[in-house]
């Protein structure tokens, strides 16, 4: 008591001053600390928990998962919560490539579903249409720990949470162990150079390693961005303004890709996202980069190549190991007449017990976006799924190292990186590299130097 009085009299103690000054200096020097700690509105006991309104109706729009059982479980949880709270809930599923046109139509008409699944940088594109959900994210942070940096980068626009982190769809390599053995490749390549060296051996078996370099909204991005980063290339500098694609590092990445294709790594500019899955299930290829759906469907549905299928994380390049995963988050839309109910529904679905039930049914296709979901038992249930857990940590976003923005989203949706590789990989890997790099540079400049 006496001590307390003393403190009140003398103001700050030396220790208080040093602590505060230290935090302030560190914050100025390393603003990322603020990001990773949840920012000034960190989770706390003052956060208000949204309450559902009895009689409300909530419509949620998201993509149809490649693992149908996961959607069924998600719907079951929604309905269960709706019944318990007197809320009518509706799940509207659309194919992945239809989700953005539907979202855009809703945003433009200022009406539509109460909750929309945001893929990649959509919160940056549709910021004004997404309600501030900082309170709800802080509630989740207080319960589940830090969010994944990639989910956070997409969800947090100018310091405000515009979407609630939902899930990561890890992308790793799925390959046929029997063809690899037949080719004399004992394990999946650990570096891009090893992959290029393995390609001709696999091609000789008649079952090449193959991937898209076309306009596939998922697989093209998850393949060619990590290759670019692995060799030190980038579309734009960290300032998000200076286009940096025209570099020696980009050329190194393209040279690797051209060498790999000449060796026998097969690229398909015409493939969309489902095509490599189908080619694998039809026994046409020995390996491809994808979400866990190929392996899961083999295991659950087809049972043809389950025993001879394995998965491997991303190979490393000279500048490190990088991955790009599909990142999904949920936004509560500003036109929702029952936004509080919508927020309450999302919070329920993100509760640890509920969420882990869902990831268990998803069988390794989805990883959780908060610390509490690290070490999800589903990835321990089958050693072959470990690769999908391993690719979460090195995950980045399109446009990295710049923070996600409207500009990075536009560059992504115009497939600039994939087009650059595709152009250079035309005619069996003999395309014009210089023309490809220059075209990518001028397309990126058109986006990043455009006002607005």
């Amino acid at each position, binding site marked *: 008591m006496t001590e307390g009085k003393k403190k009140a009299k003398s103001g700050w103690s030396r220790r208080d001053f040093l602590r505060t000054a230290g935090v302030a200096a560190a914050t100025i020097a390393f603003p990322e600390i603020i990001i990773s700690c949840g920012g000034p509105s960190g989770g706390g006991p003052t956060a208000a928990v949204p309450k559902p309104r009895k009689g409300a109706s909530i419509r949620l729009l998201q993509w149809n998962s490649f693992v149908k059982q996961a959607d069924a479980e998600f719907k079951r949880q929604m309905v269960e919560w709706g019944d318990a709270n007197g809320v009518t809930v509706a799940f509207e599923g659309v194919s992945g490539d239809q989700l953005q046109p539907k979202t855009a139509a809703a945003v433009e008409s200022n009406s539509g579903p109460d909750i929309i699944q945001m893929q990649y940088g959509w919160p940056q594109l549709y910021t004004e*249409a997404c309600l501030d959900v900082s309170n709800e994210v802080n509630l989740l942070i207080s319960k589940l720990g830090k969010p994944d940096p990639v989910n956070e980068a997409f969800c947090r626009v100018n310091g405000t949470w515009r979407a609630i982190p939902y899930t990561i769809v890890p992308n790793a390599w799925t390959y046929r162990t029997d063809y690899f053995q037949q080719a004399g490749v004992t394990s999946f390549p650990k570096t891009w150079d090893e992959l290029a060296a393995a390609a001709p051996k696999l091609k000789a078996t008649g079952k090449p390693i193959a991937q898209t370099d076309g306009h596939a909204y998922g697989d093209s991005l998850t393949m060619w961005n990590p290759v670019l980063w692995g060799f030190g290339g980038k579309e734009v500098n960290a300032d998000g303004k200076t286009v940096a694609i025209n570099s020696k590092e980009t050329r190194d990445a393209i040279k690797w890709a051209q060498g790999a294709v000449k060796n026998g790594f097969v690229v398909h500019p015409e493939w969309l996202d489902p095509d490599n899955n189908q080619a694998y299930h039809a026994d*046409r290829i020995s390996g491809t980069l994808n979400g866990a759906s190929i392996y899961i469907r083999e295991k659950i549905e087809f049972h043809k190549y389950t025993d001879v299928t394995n998965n491997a994380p991303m190979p490393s390049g000279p500048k490190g190991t990088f991955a790009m995963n599909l990142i999904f988050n949920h936004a509560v839309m500003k036109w929702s007449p029952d936004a509080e109910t919508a927020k309450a529904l999302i919070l329920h679905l993100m509760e640890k017990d509920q969420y882990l039930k869902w990831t268990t049914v998803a069988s390794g296709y989805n990883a959780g976006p908060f610390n509490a979901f690290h070490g999800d038992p589903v990835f321990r249930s089958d050693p072959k799924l470990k690769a999908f857990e391993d690719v979460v940590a090195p995950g980045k976003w399109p446009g990295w190292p710049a923070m996600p923005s409207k500009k990075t*989203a536009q560059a992504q949706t*115009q497939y600039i990186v994939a087009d650059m590789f595709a152009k250079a990989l035309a005619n069996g890997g003999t395309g014009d590299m210089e023309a490809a790099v220059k075209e990518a540079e001028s*397309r990126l400049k*058109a986006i990043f130097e455009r006002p607005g």
Partner: protein
Amino acid sequence: MGTATRRVDSVPVWYQRRVRIYDREAPLGYLLLVPTLGILGIFLLYPFLFGMWLSVTDSELGTLGKFIGLGNYRFEFRNTDGVFYGAVANTFLYTGVTTVFKLGLGLVMALLLNQVFPYRRFVRAALLLPYIIPTVLSYEAWRWMFDPTFSVMNWLLVHTHLVPYPGPDWLGVPANAMAALIIVNIWRGAPFYGISFLAGMQVIPLDLYEAARVDGASRWQQFTSITLPMLRPILLVVLLLSTILTFADFQGPFVLTNGAPYNSTQLLAIWAYQWGIPGGAIGLGAAISLVLFPLLTVVVAGVLFLLRRPE
């Protein structure tokens, strides 16, 4: 007479005026046009004017922007990335080639269907199928047929020894991909031409052909001197509609190639979509989609002039 006058006097003035309007052709005509004009105004004029307004603003999806004059148009015309000009060239190529083939095939189709043969009605109905099936479904089926892994066309070509295994890469090579787009558009559009021309041919009086035959005209002469001139109004209208629709074609090319490989099949409609919808720059997207509007206006005016011109 007195009774009649009294009866007219007893009718309210507003009713008398209404009757007078009904009795006069011109006001009645305008009156009857009002519902149609209303519908056209709501569903055509408003979206068109709104699109024009968007094209001169910096609007983003969900946010109405401010007026920037011709900024969006300048941006695309001065852009050096090559995609925009590539899309313009591709759009002209796509429209030009498909229109010529659809016109030729449509005429042949109509001439054949105009003959008497068994199951004629069934064949006529069957030929309309490509036009009736929802675009996305038929293009998905074509995508499947063009797929290098599962292509039924390649299977046929390889097994009939017309091409070596694995057959053409239909959608993975720029020239092939553009050819594939053109083939599917012709497949889908030719029946529309055919049925429209057939309708036109069926109202040509048969005695014209009989007279020509009596005069010793050959079949070719009958075609060029009777069929084609009599078909001229329908031919021009079909050509006009088809050109406009093909210029703005989106669904099919989007499903089939979405501009790939590396924008070699990029069309203006898809490019406008990529900026406007996934890219969120709705103002710029609107400007790209309206770039060809002046040119199309000239085309429409030309065709309308030809239609009104006497023989």
